[in-house]
């Protein structure tokens, strides 16, 4: 049986068992990672996962069954069990479930990949990490780490409405970090971000990061941070580097515009959202400079695909336009509840997980400035970059983020290095204070976005560039 046949058998079995809609995904994922520490390889792993997940809608209740066996019998059994589980859901029923229209599609899509990351020899990849961590050790860091990760995913989607879509998505990335240990504290510097930069791309991305070229610098910075002055406490102008702004977007915009959170579907765990659907189209989210798109079509960005895991094609949409909230991340059922006519943001972490509303690429459009211009225009402030910690409340309002490094800004110049920089605020107030935004956009990849129960790890992309925010509270500490 082909993968499509297996998925089709599961869908048909679910229909036979009473489902009014069903879809199924066969997914085959190869994952490889290598980590090195202090000049030696620490762990080399290659996992292979193949299985089937089938989703059934019986009445107004969903059921989902995943199996790692791909025989016809197992597929039919999975379809039956999904329908049975959906029927059990009816014991605690909700309102009627509708699905917005989705044109049945037969399609095949692959991400662009110049250099197959699984085709690069292990010795080449290992040598890179060993050399980079070795250099950092030579330059004074106490603990040096390097990591790459590769995902090669093939999936076959079939729905009872006639979708037959196969996709192959290759993702990879890498990063290095140096930690210096002092008396009672540690200081870490990473390149290009902690645990790395990732994209839907081939090994050419890792080559472009040029890890070894940055190894000595970040090692020396981690050592210097141990004796750098603390980030001052108080309100000041804050300039964020692009990597940190990507995380800011992820946490305070991306999650907030997830329609399942807005509808209360994540209330007990991930939380809800401060956004109210009655304000969609009118709410002032940020300053006029704030233009955020939901765009799974960006070549090479980590949240890119051809079709989401409900068979909806990748389409670029506005989430925030000139500071006004205008769009959400949605799926076919949540969109129907909200009275919207688009989905396209439903994804699953492998065959064993239920597809759910997830970020794709959620990020900023470029502004009119450069980082150099922003610094030059700032009389007094702090520049922070590269995320070290992140915490935000369950409505995605109250946040506190820490960065690896800060610099004092005085009279338009970058000054002393500052250690333990943190800043805190309330999402919309913070975004409304953004008065300068750089054009130097990078699509940062976040390969570790947790959501859902059972837990799912999502891969998201976030175009971002340096920006300035006025009168931000910085330097919060214990």
């Amino acid at each position: 049986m082909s993968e499509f046949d297996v998925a089709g058998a599961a869908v048909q079995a679910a229909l036979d068992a009473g489902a009014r809609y069903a879809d199924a995904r066969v997914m085959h994922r190869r994952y490889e990672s290598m980590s090195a520490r202090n000049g030696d390889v620490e762990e080399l792993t290659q996992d292979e996962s193949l299985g089937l997940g089938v989703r059934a809608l019986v009445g107004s209740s969903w059921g989902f069954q995943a199996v790692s066996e791909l025989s016809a019998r197992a597929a039919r059994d999975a379809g039956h069990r999904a329908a049975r589980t959906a029927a059990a859901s009816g014991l605690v029923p909700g309102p009627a479930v509708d699905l917005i229209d989705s044109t049945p599609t037969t399609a095949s899509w692959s991400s662009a990949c110049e250099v197959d990351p699984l085709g690069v020899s292990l010795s080449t990849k290992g040598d890179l990490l060993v050399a980079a961590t070795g250099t950092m050790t030579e330059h004074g860091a106490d603990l040096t780490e390097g990591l790459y990760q590769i995902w090669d995913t093939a999936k076959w989607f079939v729905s009872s409405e006639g979708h037959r879509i196969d996709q192959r998505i290759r993702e990879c990335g890498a990063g290095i970090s140096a930690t210096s240990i002092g008396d009672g504290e540690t200081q870490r510097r990473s390149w290009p971000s902690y645990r790395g930069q990732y994209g839907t791309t081939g090994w050419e991305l890792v080559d472009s990061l040029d890890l070894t070229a940055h190894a000595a610098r970040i090692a020396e910075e981690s050592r210097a941070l141990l004796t750098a002055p603390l980030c001052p406490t108080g309100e000041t102008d804050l300039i964020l580097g692009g990597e940190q702004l990507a995380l800011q977007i992820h946490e305070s915009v991306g999650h907030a515009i997830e329609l399942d959170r807005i509808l209360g579907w994540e209330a007990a765990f991930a939380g809800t959202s401060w956004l109210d659907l009655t304000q969609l189209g009118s709410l002032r989210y940020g300053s006029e400079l704030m233009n955020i798109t939901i765009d799974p079509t960006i070549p090479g960005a980590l949240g890119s695909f051809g079709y989401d895991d409900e068979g909806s094609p990748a389409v670029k949409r506005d989430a925030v336009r000139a500071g006004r909230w205008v769009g959400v991340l949605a799926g076919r059922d949540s969109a129907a509840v909200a009275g919207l006519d688009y989905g396209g943001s439903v994804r699953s972490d492998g065959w064993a997980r239920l597809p759910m509303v997830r970020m794709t690429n959620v990020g900023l459009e470029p502004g009119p400035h450069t980082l150099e211009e922003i610094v030059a225009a700032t009389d007094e402030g702090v520049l922070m970059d590269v995320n070290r910690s992140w915490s935000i409340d369950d409505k995605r309002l109250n946040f506190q983020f820490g960065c690896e490094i800060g610099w004092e800004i005085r009279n338009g110049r970058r000054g002393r290095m500052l250690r333990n920089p943190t800043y805190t605020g309330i999402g919309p107030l913070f975004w409304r204070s953004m008065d300068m935004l750089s054009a130097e956009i990078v699509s940062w990849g976040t390969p570790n976005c947790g959501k859902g129960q059972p837990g799912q790890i999502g891969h998201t992309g976030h175009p971002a560039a340096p920006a300035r925010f006025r009168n931000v509270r910085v330097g919060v500490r214990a």
Partner: protein
Amino acid sequence: MTAADGAELDVAGQVVELVTRLAGPGAQAEVLVTRSELALTRFANSAIHQNVAESASEIQLRVHLDGRTAAGSAHGAVPDDLRALVERVLAMARFAPPDPAWPGLTPPAPVAASPEWDAATGYAGPDERAALVRAFVDAAGGLETAGYCRTALRATGFANSAGHAAQGYAAEAAMDGIARVGGADGTARRWVDRLADLDGAELGRRAAAKARAAADPVELPPGRYPVVLEPAAVADLLENLAWYGFNGKRYAERQSFAEPGVAQLDRAVTLVDDPLGVSGLPFDLEGTPARALTLVDAGTTTAVVHDRRSAAESGGESTGHARAGSATFGPIPRNLRLVPSGTAGTASTKGAGGTNAAGDATGTRGAAGNTTGARGAGGDAGGPGRVDPLAGAVTDADTAALVSRMERGLLVSDLWYTRVLEPKRLVVTGLTRNGVWLVEDGRVTRAVRDLRFTESYPRALGPGAVLEVGRRSVRLPDRWDGAWWEAPSLRLASWNFTGGASG
């Protein structure tokens, strides 16, 4: 999977044989085979909206060959898959960079039989989980509810080329839910090794009572406050201590605060990792037998946990805490309990676990009565014939006792989104969630809006800082099955709140 038939052990042995046959007797191999039945019924807006189940098998193989190490895994257990996996991992090992820190295989050692596991829990169907959700929703008295009920069964077999072999089984269930009213949430959750021990109605009633008590909160200024942390909040302390403090890799890297032999915490604090106190697997990914391990004894740090690699680096022995990814993230104690006050011993037995669960449930039910009594304390706010909603803030007698001895401070139900700012001092920022109340003269007087905190956990638990440890523990689920945190309520001298709801 229909029985504990040892099939996983057979497959593990086949894989080891294949490695030896294909790579020769010099190849070192260890294999863990896991079959699992995992199911989770999720509800929101008082309706089941996601309902999932997974039947899967996985083989995890690690090979050390000619000084090089590689690991791989595969789903499925048919012969073709076994050979493909072995060939793939051997090929990786041949081309991998050298691994000078390879710690060797676990030698043959006795492994205890799995603690009693409940097949009815492991094989529970969606109807049983839905019935518990129904009970939770109904008991919330019309309040909006959300949460989950999950069940899990794992059957495992381990073998390595050093001649060590073991098998184990574990089943568990958990329920975690909130009730919501007027923007306020209340929570109740529980981990059990028998689904029959979950009482959805009791959890729903508790969550609803706490939600009603959390309504109409006031905003308090940030600052240091004495606190009573309820078990769900204490569980967050345990989790962060486990990941960043008692992690043998971070200890070896000098990134942990832990210093064995030093009185680092208050004498009231004893922490035990107890994977076999209830249903759990009796060995780790490397085959090392699991056992109870005291990490802090009356305030003195006594141990950190190790896998074979971190143990070798530290000059110690593995404590049985290897799992996928531990070479990178470090070994973590995932069954950590804060020993309640009045407890004689530190290592629990199965019987003790059962007593604990039953005792807690009894305490909870008693708490309803106790809380009513406590309303005598705050009853003047409600007036004759009226039920004061603040009565629901404290839902168990144990916490009520701690609250009664706090002159002025905050009662905190739960912590949320905690992240480490300074690893060595374990400075953590996060927020309160699911209910905070002002306590004055030993009585709950107002609901409070959520606060942000920035606190060093070892300092908050340091010598002289723990004023009181509760007498009854609650076992609480982790996000992932196989892990749980067990704690009573705690009364602490000070907690550093650094921001209010308004920023």
